[in-house]
């Protein structure tokens, strides 16, 4: 704890500065603390009420954080395998596109038209509806210079927020989680909702990012603990004598009980929307429940494609496989957005997709496409700038047979970190990238 001096000072004084850990009677402390619980169920978990760093947050002076944005949530959706951007956001009137894809070409009559010459894949009906409602936007032509075209290296670049020449042992989400934890000690900054091995991008120095496969129930053991701790000091004399850790442990146990109750309440609340029977839909439903439970989690990470080979890596017989994945994406994300929109939760949520790369323009002779470069990034949320952001890549100017990027993905990272979550992006990305106008003003 001495790594963070503000943390320690938070322990020895309450917000009036009257409480001293050693000197004051424990009972009074407990009473004061439970009074705070009435204000915000989670005490430490909710930014602003964190016992540690309380003063910082209340004054809004903490560096690199914007208190007005602290209830905002970021959801990252990883599309594993390299999504074919040209058959996701389809330039159906483009000659190069038409000529290069004898079997995979999607026609005007099939796609869901977005604007002149551009439409979404036939399986993305629901996504097209979100687009027209202004709740789904598309950032076109995203990538980076000299991008990698093999899976592990490209995925590593996207997951670390690649800084040339620098070895990074952590992912960009992990570093963001560390930053959030530093500013709101004791919180749960991020979780992974999925069934694959935890992605590298969630590697953090101090934050521990758990994997959640299904909505967590309140363990019975916690109920037992609640009974025992009710109206009772928990630590024996020897442990509690002037021991900040004993106090923290006590406080943390009581807060765990509070979280468990919140989780239970959120699980019991009526479901607002029917989710389709897709894996991604189930994961997103868990995300929605956790957002509603209001635990202070800032970043959720979900995945589509299975994590290993296959998935979006459509080298052969692309049409059916790609269509199935896009159907899963479209139906799941739409149900989720509709669900969150019912109680306006969507206004504090932003979902961003990414894949390790886009794919080549030309079909490869096996009714598939190969690893490419630029890709469209899909955004879903209640406060995004509607429509298409940036031009479609010019297919007359390719980069080794693939669409050429014009928008660096780290500019998007910067925007979601700083403009959306209110974090200092440079502390996570190392370089001062400029923002992309993706948010509604």
């Amino acid at each position, binding site marked *: 704890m001495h790594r963070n001096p503000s943390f320690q000072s938070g322990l020895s004084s309450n917000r009036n500065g009257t409480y001293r850990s050693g000197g004051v009677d424990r009972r009074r402390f407990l009473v004061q603390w439970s009074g705070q619980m009435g204000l915000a169920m989670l005490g430490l978990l909710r930014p602003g009420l964190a016992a540690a760093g309380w003063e910082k947050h209340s004054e809004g002076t903490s560096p690199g954080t914007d208190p007005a944005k602290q209830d905002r949530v970021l959801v990252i959706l990883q599309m594993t395998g390299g999504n074919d951007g040209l058959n996701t956001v389809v330039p159906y009137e483009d000659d190069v596109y038409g000529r290069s894809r004898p079997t995979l070409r999607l026609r005007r009559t099939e796609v869901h038209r977005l604007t002149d010459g551009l439409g979404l894949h036939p399986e993305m009906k629901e996504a097209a509806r979100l687009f027209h409602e202004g709740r789904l936007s598309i950032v076109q032509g995203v990538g980076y210079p000299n991008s990698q075209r093999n899976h592990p290296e490209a995925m590593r670049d996207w997951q670390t927020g690649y800084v040339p020449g620098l070895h990074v042992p952590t992912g960009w989400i992990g570093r963001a989680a560390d930053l959030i934890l530093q500013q709101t000690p004791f919180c749960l900054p991020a979780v992974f909702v999925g069934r694959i091995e935890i992605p590298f991008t969630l590697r953090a120095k101090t934050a521990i990012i758990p994997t959640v496969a299904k909505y967590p129930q309140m363990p019975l*053991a916690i109920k*037992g603990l609640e009974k025992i701790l009710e109206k009772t000091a928990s*630590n024996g004399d020897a*442990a509690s*004598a002037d021991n900040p850790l*004993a106090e923290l*442990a006590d406080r*943390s146990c009581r807060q765990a009980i509070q979280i468990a109750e919140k989780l239970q309440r959120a699980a019991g609340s009526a479901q607002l929307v029917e989710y389709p029977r897709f894996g991604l839909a189930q994961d997103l439903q868990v995300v929605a429940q956790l957002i509603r439970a209001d635990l202070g989690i800032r970043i959720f990470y979900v995945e589509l494609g299975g994590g290993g080979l296959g998935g979006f890596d459509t080298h052969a017989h692309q049409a059916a496989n790609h269509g199935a994945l896009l159907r899963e994406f479209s139906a799941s994300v739409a149900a989720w957005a509709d669900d969150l929109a019912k109680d306006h939760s969507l206004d504090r949520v932003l979902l961003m997709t990414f894949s390790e790369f886009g794919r080549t323009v030309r079909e490869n002779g096996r009714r598939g496409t190969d690893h490419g470069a630029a890709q469209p990034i899909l955004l879903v949320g209640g406060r995004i700038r509607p429509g298409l952001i940036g031009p479609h890549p010019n297919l007359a100017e390719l980069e080794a047979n693939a669409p050429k990027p014009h928008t660096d993905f780290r500019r998007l990272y910067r925007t979601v970190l700083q403009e959306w979550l209110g974090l200092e992006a440079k502390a996570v990305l190392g370089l001062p990238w400029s923002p992309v106008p993706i948010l509604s003003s």
Partner: protein
Amino acid sequence: MGQTACAPMEPQEAWQRFEQDSAWNLKWAGHLLRRIGFGPTWPELQKALAQGPQKTIDGLFQVSAEAEAFAGQMDQWEASAATLPQIRAWWLRRMLETPQPLVEKMTLFWHSQLALGNVRNVSPALLREYLRTIRRYCLGRLDSLFRAVVLQPAMLLSHGAEANRKARPNEHFARVLLEQFSVGPGGFTEKDVQETARSLTGYFVLREEVRFIDREYDSGPKTLFGRSGPFGAEELFDLLARHPATAKSIARKLYRFFISEAEEPGDALLEPLASRLIQGQTIGQVVETMVRSKWFFSLAAYRRRVKCPVEWALGVLRPMEVLVPTEPLGHALAELGQALGEPPTPAGWPDGVHWISPALLLLRGKWSQQFWASDSPFGQKLDPAGLAARHAAKTPSAQVEFLLNLYLQRDLPPEVQNKLVSQVQWASHQTNSNALRQVCQTLALLPAFQLA
């Protein structure tokens, strides 16, 4: 001991041998055995109580014939472990059953301090060899430990340092070595990083073995920490081990591991430990000084560390005196944030308060329930009622009191103890065993039980 022990001590007095046998009781026996091992059993607590502190410590530092036989047997069995989960399972079994818990405790310590990078580049055989090497050198001299562990194939591969060419010295790994493993942040310059990298040139991992290739070694003169010479790896490890900043950094880490994470120790308190390391005392000797001391048996150390998931889970399971399936235990630990074999970064696992956030405690709640559920792979093996009866606790309330002594040495406020006892008293006789399981499930989540 007692309350007066909380009074500040002069640094030279702090590390003096603790001789106050009259204050020795179950609580302090629990403290000693928790710190130097994992969740003591009732017979271990009773033996320590009878022997007194110093004699107990004598035993903990001795390598008995039994311990040697156990290690030999485990080495043999472990050789068949072909996957990371299996390697974890064997290690956890060692922790559960070893007659010499200090060795496993120190292996855990160094596994986090001399951490691997990306283990996906490392085969199970190499990971096993790395852990075996740490286990072998964990209590020896610092320079031998560095020499043995830093040049492990697993270490070089996981940090991307498998080819240390003369033309391209690996500054990334040199930085890890200086910053994480030895002198610590701020204790070195960019020039030191370059010279360290040059000193390691010539080492390659070829077909999973470390080879020294002479023509790739930069034999030119180097200047490191104010000394000059044509240093190679040998000289480098000597320089690092004898560097005062290394000694102080290691002493500080040992202090956090054995004494307290609650306060930052002052220089005066660390200096006697650091100077022992510089003089070439073994890590074991320094640890021994620490745990035999007045400071160790004072309130400044008592329950002033947070249990990491391994300490927490073994603290729940080991006192039950049975073997539980350790492969699922390894998965449980991964979910709790401590995937053995895969530390999150080269800096190892975070410690202290990072382990007791409310969300992680909720996860401990989930696993406490799993451990004690009578139909889980763990719960099937655990029999708290039977164990209590075997140790002569027959009535329900005596059994709860036994468990309170076993797990927390009754260091709880009377109200909490009364509530737990009444939980069982009200249960009918048939459900007594389940009621005891529920007590254990709750005990594992009490704030005091989160602290070592």
